[in-house]
């Protein structure tokens, strides 16, 4: 099914960015709002082909019988013709990226709205540049999610870096220079390894189809035979010749699949972020302005998990098997270490940042065990965290706008002063805590169940699950303690005259809060749209 809808979706923000630069300063934010609003509406048009997928009968029709079998909204244009290869402008949608695309457009829209009071910020210069960069960032994020050609994916991946650098570096807090370059360096360190993997995968796939021409049947029409190396992410995962060759060949004396898996993994682990490459995250979050933190936590971190599921596992399943224990260990350490760090923070924003490290640890653990429940849990956790953590960051932003500090211990009794805001904060933080009935719960439980399920394959699965479950207690610890210190207790005089959350602030919080509840009560609204693809990927790799 060919369509240009995804291209419009990706490049409407770019058009908006140009418009922001050209339009007069008074209407900049309106233009940005319009652009991100249009792309949000466009993203809703992506849903219809996936409707009714929860029904077993329909699932096969929607998601196809195997990975890459039923991509939607495909756009495929030859882009770069090399001597022996073609790089394509190849966009497509399946259950893996659909929820993330909608999440991206939603969070971007809310982030633009959260920037509505730009003129009141401490650093309110360069308004046009700010909104233009924000929209460019949205293009990069959407492009990364929908690109199915490795080269295109890489371009979009790197396109995200520069806007983010400037958004943190120019409009950030006191240590913005340090935070911005640290973010850039860490991410680039990962992506240069990805570049090596890109080059290597291209040549090894070329060697593969030369070695096993009889197996090199392309997934595209099921008949034509691949004759050259490819950058097509689906082809790399599904072509039998490539898979066979990747599994058995060597790279500088090591087995190809595990080495490439790690090259890709490092790039995604930095984004996720997993301990020990997470240190850029607290710095970036603390220094970034609130809307940028929302995007960073809500969307950018999901790039890591998405990368695992789109690149690492389908293309190098044996690499996944090889490193499963290590990855799970990293995941568990991230959960516990992130939670403990969060507990020790006195800076409100830093606490939320470390809670992200902890929560994304579940994503890594759920993926590492390679069970269906684990994958589902990891994917759901990404969506849930993509809703609850921007909400938390915005909640921090709301109070920071009034108090101009983020010291947890100096707050207290805010619920009495701002009851509506307090209610929202409770929903947001409880969702983050993983309270049953709110979205955070479902993802964590699925990850834990999935980890237990893997006990027959991996001996370490049970201890890993127990330790990860213990993480929930730490999480409850720091969040309850936080709520107690900030929102409960007697009203403090210096905060007594704070105005209640404004209509705009409530309007940003309400949809997020609603989603927290809906996803917690009816997880099917997410599961139905992605289960089929996750199952196809698992069928493919097991």
């Amino acid at each position, binding site marked *: 099914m060919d369509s240009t809808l995804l291209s419009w979706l990706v490049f409407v923000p770019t058009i908006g960015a140009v418009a922001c630069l050209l339009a007069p300063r008074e209407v900049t934010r309106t233009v940005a709002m319009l652009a991100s609003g249009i792309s949000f509406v466009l993203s809703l048009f992506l849903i219809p082909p996936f409707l009714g997928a929860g029904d077993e009968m329909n699932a096969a029709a929607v998601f196809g019988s195997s990975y890459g079998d039923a991509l939607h909204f495909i756009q495929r244009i030859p*882009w*770069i*013709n*090399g*001597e*022996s290869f*073609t*790089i394509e402008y190849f966009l497509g949608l399946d259950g893996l990226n659909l929820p993330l695309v909608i999440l991206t457009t939603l969070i971007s829209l809310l982030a633009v709205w959260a920037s509505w009071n730009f003129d009141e910020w401490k650093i309110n*210069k*360069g308004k046009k540049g700010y909104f233009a960069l924000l929209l460019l960032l949205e293009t990069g994020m959407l492009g990364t999610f929908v690109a199915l050609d490795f080269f295109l994916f*890489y*371009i979009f991946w*790197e*396109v995200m*870096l*520069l806007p983010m*650098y*400037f958004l943190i*570096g*120019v409009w950030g807090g006191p240590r*913005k*220079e340090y935070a*911005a*370059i640290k973010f*850039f*360096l860490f991410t*680039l*360190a990962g992506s*240069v*390894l990805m*570049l*090596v993997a890109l*080059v*290597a995968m*291209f*040549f*090894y796939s*070329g*060697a593969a189809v*030369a*070695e096993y021409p009889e197996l090199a049947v392309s997934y595209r029409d099921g008949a034509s035979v691949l*004759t*050259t190396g490819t950058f097509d992410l689906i082809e790399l995962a599904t072509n039998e010749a490539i898979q066979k060759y990747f599994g*058995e*060949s*060597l*790279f*500088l004396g090591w*087995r*190809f699949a595990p080495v490439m898996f790690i090259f890709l993994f490092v790039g995604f682990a930095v984004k996720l972020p997993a301990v020990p490459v997470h240190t850029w995250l607290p710095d970036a979050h603390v220094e970034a302005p609130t809307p940028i933190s929302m995007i960073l936590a809500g969307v950018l971190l999901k790039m890591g998990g998405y990368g695992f599921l789109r690149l690492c596992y389908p293309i190098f399943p044996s690499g996944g098997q090889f490193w499963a224990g290590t990855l799970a260990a990293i995941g568990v350490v991230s959960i516990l270490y992130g939670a403990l760090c969060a507990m020790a923070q006195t800076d409100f924003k830093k606490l939320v940042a470390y809670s992200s490290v902890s929560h994304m640890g579940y994503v890594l653990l759920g993926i590492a065990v390679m069970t269906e429940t684990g994958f589902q849990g990891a994917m759901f956790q990404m969506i849930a965290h993509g809703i609850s953590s921007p909400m938390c960051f915005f909640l921090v932003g709301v109070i920071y706008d009034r108090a101009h500090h983020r010291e947890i211990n100096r707050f207290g009794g805010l619920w009495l002063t701002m009851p509506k805001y307090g209610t929202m904060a409770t929903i947001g933080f409880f969702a983050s805590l993983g309270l049953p009935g709110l979205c955070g719960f479902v993802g964590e439980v699925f990850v834990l169940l999935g980890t237990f399920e893997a006990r027959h394959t991996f001996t370490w699965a049970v201890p890993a699950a127990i330790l990860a479950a213990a993480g929930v207690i730490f999480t409850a610890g720091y969040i309850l303690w936080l709520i107690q210190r900030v929102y409960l207790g007697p009203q403090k005089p210096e905060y007594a005259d704070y105005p209640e959350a404004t209509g705009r602030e409530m309007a940003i919080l309400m949809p997020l809060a609603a989603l927290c509840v809906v996803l917690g009560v009816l997880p099917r609204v997410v599961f139905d749209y992605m289960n089929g693809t996750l199952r196809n990927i698992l069928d493919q790799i097991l």
Partner: protein
Amino acid sequence: MTSLLASMWLPSGEDLIRFAPELALVGTLAVLLTVPLVIGRSSIVAGRIAMVGVVATLLLAITVGRRAIDGGLSGLAPPAAGGMLILDNLTVYFKAVLMLFLAGTIVLWFIISADTEQHGTEFFVLLLGSALGMVLMTATLNLLMIVVAIELASLPSYAIVGFDKHNRKAAEASLKYAIFGAVSAAIMLYGVSLIYGLYHTLNMTEIAPRLVTHLASGHNVFTIGIALVLVLGGIAFKIAAVPFHFWCPDAFEGARIEVTTWLSVSSKAAALLLLLRLVDALSGAAAAQGVVLNALTGLAWVIGLMAAVTCTWGNFAAYRQDNVKRLLAYSSIAHAGYMLMAAAVFAHPASVRADHSPIAAVLVYLLVYAVMNLGAFTVVAVVAKATGSESLSAFNGLGRRSPWLGVAMVMCLVSLVGLPPFGGFIAKLWLLLALGSQGGTLCWLLILVAVGNTLISLFFYFRIVRAMYLFDDRQPSFSAPVPGIALVNLCAVALLLLGVLFINRPKLIADRYARNLFAQRPAGFVQRPLDRNDGIDPGTAVVRADEASSTDGPSAKRR
């Protein structure tokens, strides 16, 4: 001596047409020198004459090159010249790129120095003289001619670096450059004399097969080895490869900015292509005789090691610089390192099975590098002229003080780092793909070094970005000259287009120009049509007959 005389030839009319671009350059030099006698000294007039001459050379190079390549001129190199002067695709491409870049440099001169220049005539004579030398460097396989061409390129360069005679730094730079240059020339001459002593000819096309035979049979290996290393050293000096780089930062810092711009690209480019040509002669001869030489593998590793050290050193050293010009000088060392990598794999015997892609990668890299360096240096020049300082602090808040300059500089710098969506990334990608296509341990190690260096280089290039956008010490804004802004943004837009819309255009052109180097080595080779689907004229790749016995590369990596 007899052989020398035998290689002299009297040009025919056709030869004159073939070398019309070079003759046009020489003619421009003559005009530059004679016009002041008639109308008096005028820097602006000299600049205009130079510009016209360069553009004429560019057009001639393209038209004559087209004719030569399409077969309109019989034979590519005049046979009687004995390899003294070669006209092939590589020289055509290089001439075109070099003249384009020279035109850009002259435009930069008009923007920066035209109003204060007192010795325009001399300046352009020296500038065009060095350009002529560089053109000749890439167009010969005669050792004597190589030495002469290198000197022709170098001597004006020494003078031009110290052109502002009242500037002590410039004088020091010029002296350092001259001393290092003289020593390197002596070293190289010694290497050449050893080769001449062994083979009694200066013609590489004759020397290479005999040299390969000797190496294969173990004759004179020691002498040949020393000679090759000495020649390589001489070339490495021009490339400013570590450990022959010491002159480079000083010379580049001391020279005026348009001279730095010019030398940062052109001298390295010419020397690099010369190296590729020599390596091609050797590996071509080895392939023609069907032997796999350990010596060539060793040469590949030596060049590869030099490349890796060069770009790593350049990037690390750049980090500590506070003078932006000096910083960009180290950056040019690093970029030369990237390009040397292609030369390394090209020398590797295992690579001969493949194709011209390393050469094509270098050609693309040169083009893109010329554009981004011109852009970056123009910004430095404009800022230095407006503020009187080349230090990093002069850039503080530039994004606010001159938004157009700031944005364009960011684009050039990101491109220099090698990040998408700019031309620098594409250039690096073709380089990595060229390395990867050869396979083998050396290539993958070089790839890892190259991407690792991308990371290191981010750090120092972004010190400039940080100064421009993240710092703001309230310096007054200034209005940059419009031509300067136009030139910078032209470069930036070109980089963006090269990185997004016209990604493979330079590569396709470079492929066409790189290909014919292999036309001269039929024996022992089979011609295999490449699997092509891009609708461009189907070229041929040269495949070694014993390709299957190659032990490196993906196909051999079996568990």
